[in-house]
């Protein structure tokens, strides 16, 4: 029996570049390079490992994003995923988390799935809520924030390291999983993988393919509104001293002056 895995991947502005907001207070994507959210590489990696353990598995990577988001899909395909779905529509611009979860859930249903694998959080919005929202919409178990995951006989098991305890979790498929960056280093695409990715199918769906109305998503359909975005003022230059034998004492003096000691 074939295991159908859908991996959700987000295309995000490079965190090491200068990230900005555009005039409409959405993320400015024109002036900064985008890439596959690094935390979603861990999701692709775990999907590949789960697929390798299954008799027969197929991995579809799914992204919701603008034209350039295809780059994120290509990266995931070159790591070894089988095919890709790109949900792209001008009306999606400015969609919030609740709206994004609607689009993802409809696309996952249309693609067909037994297991959804997501990252723990995107590196731009960093909300960490999409996997839970998608599980709520699909009506299937959420097995999220796993640092260890395995699938056998239609059951997914994993370990979730929380603040006060580490938990062992278990659920029957279909289910939504999210994995942390503790789940295992993601592989680099090989040259062969990169060449093969060029021939793998990438489907493009728009809102009408998913039977979603334009006013359910985008800035207009958003249930949250950003009123303002201000760049944080640069910190005023601090005092920097070179240790010439008294560095620790000087630092203690600074801490005492500021009443920490």
């Amino acid at each position, binding site marked *: 029996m074939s295991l159908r895995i859908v991996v959700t991947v987000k295309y995000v502005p490079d*965190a090491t570049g200068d990230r900005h907001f555009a005039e409409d207070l959405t993320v400015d994507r024109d002036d900064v390079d985008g890439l596959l959210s690094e935390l979603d590489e861990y999701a692709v990696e775990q999907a590949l490992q789960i697929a390798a353990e299954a008799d027969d598995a197929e991995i579809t990577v799914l992204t919701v994003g603008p034209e350039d988001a295809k780059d994120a899909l290509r990266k995931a395909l070159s790591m070894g995923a089988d095919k890709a779905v790109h949900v792209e529509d001008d009306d999606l611009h400015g969609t919030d*988390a609740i709206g994004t979860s609607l689009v993802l859930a409809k696309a996952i249903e249309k693609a067909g799935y037994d297991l959804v694998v997501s990252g723990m959080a995107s590196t731009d919005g960093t909300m*960490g809520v999409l996997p839970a929202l998608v599980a*709520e919409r699909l009506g299937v178990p959420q097995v999220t924030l796993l640092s260890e995951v395995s699938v056998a006989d239609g059951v997914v098991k994993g370990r979730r390291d929380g603040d006060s305890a580490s938990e062992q*979790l278990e659920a029957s498929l279909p289910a939504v999983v999210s994995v942390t960056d503790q789940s295992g280093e993601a592989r680099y695409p090989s040259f062969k993988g990169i060449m093969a990715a060029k021939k793998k199918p990438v489907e493009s769906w728009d809102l009408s393919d998913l039977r979603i109305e334009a006013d359910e998503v985008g800035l207009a359909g958003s249930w949250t509104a950003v009123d303002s975005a201000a760049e944080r003022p640069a910190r005023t230059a*601090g005092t920097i001293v070179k240790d010439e034998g008294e560095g*620790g004492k000087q*630092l203690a003096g600074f801490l005492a002056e500021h009443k*920490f000691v």
Partner: protein
Amino acid sequence: MAEVLVYVDHVDGAVRKPTLELLTLARRIGEPVAVALGNGAADTAATLAEHGAVKVLTDDASEYADYLVVPKVDALQAAYEAVSPAAVLVPSSAEAKEIAARLALRIGAGVITDAVDIEAGDSGPVATQSVFAASYTTRTRVSKGTPVITVKPNSAAVEAAPAAGAVEALSVTFSAQATGTKVTGRTPRESTGRPELTEAAIVVSGGRGVNGAENFSVIEALADSLGAAVGASRAAVDAGWYPHTNQVGQTGKSVSPQLYIASGISGAIQHRAGMQTSKTIVAVNKDAEAPIFDLVDYGVVGDLFEVVPQLTEEIRTRKG
């Protein structure tokens, strides 16, 4: 006055500090009604009352411990329906964010995560978020439904404000999804005796420059001299020198203490994402060009194995 639901984060009845901060923020927009679930739920009442809860809704069904997340969503939804609040405030822990989002979707409302401040506005509460590794500050509203907002630790000073805190049993009917994800085992985290990382007023962190698990004793000694929590960079965690639960940064904890001391940490963007909102930042690094120095109020260019023990010694002397 409008009621505001506050989701209580507690361990066997011991309320965590971020929840007390939420009660303080909730009083700016209405009367706090607390929701405490699971083992020891009713034991939270006295502390919550002391900090302004007019009512404490409790339920300690075993489902909360035996299954992941959804039973708590069901309970919070039951509380929402019983109270019709003006807003729902939830701490920004990983689990509570998931609960908040699912609740928002069910009640047809927008969700805002990781707020660092909340004020009353003309059309409902306005949240301040610190985004893109704290390089931007945004002000955000929920434009549909009852705002569901998660708030980061250290976003408000805890204020006592005695209120009735009457305990009421919450009646919860669990949904079909509630038992979907079983918790088959649980290993509680051992206490180190040091303050909780996200709640501490002072955090002392070590990175790759600490160069070995055993050397972390240098960092711990400084932390203990200041009554601080210990943090670590991902490089130190990945090397196995310190537990992941102590990692500060994008994929670790985000901290916002009064004082943050980084030793042997370069200051990569993902580390900064977790500590940039600290009030006072201090660094010790032997490389004068390390990006962490762009953030500091006070920096020492030097070998941490010279500077940190001397600092610890001097603090001990000054404290007598």
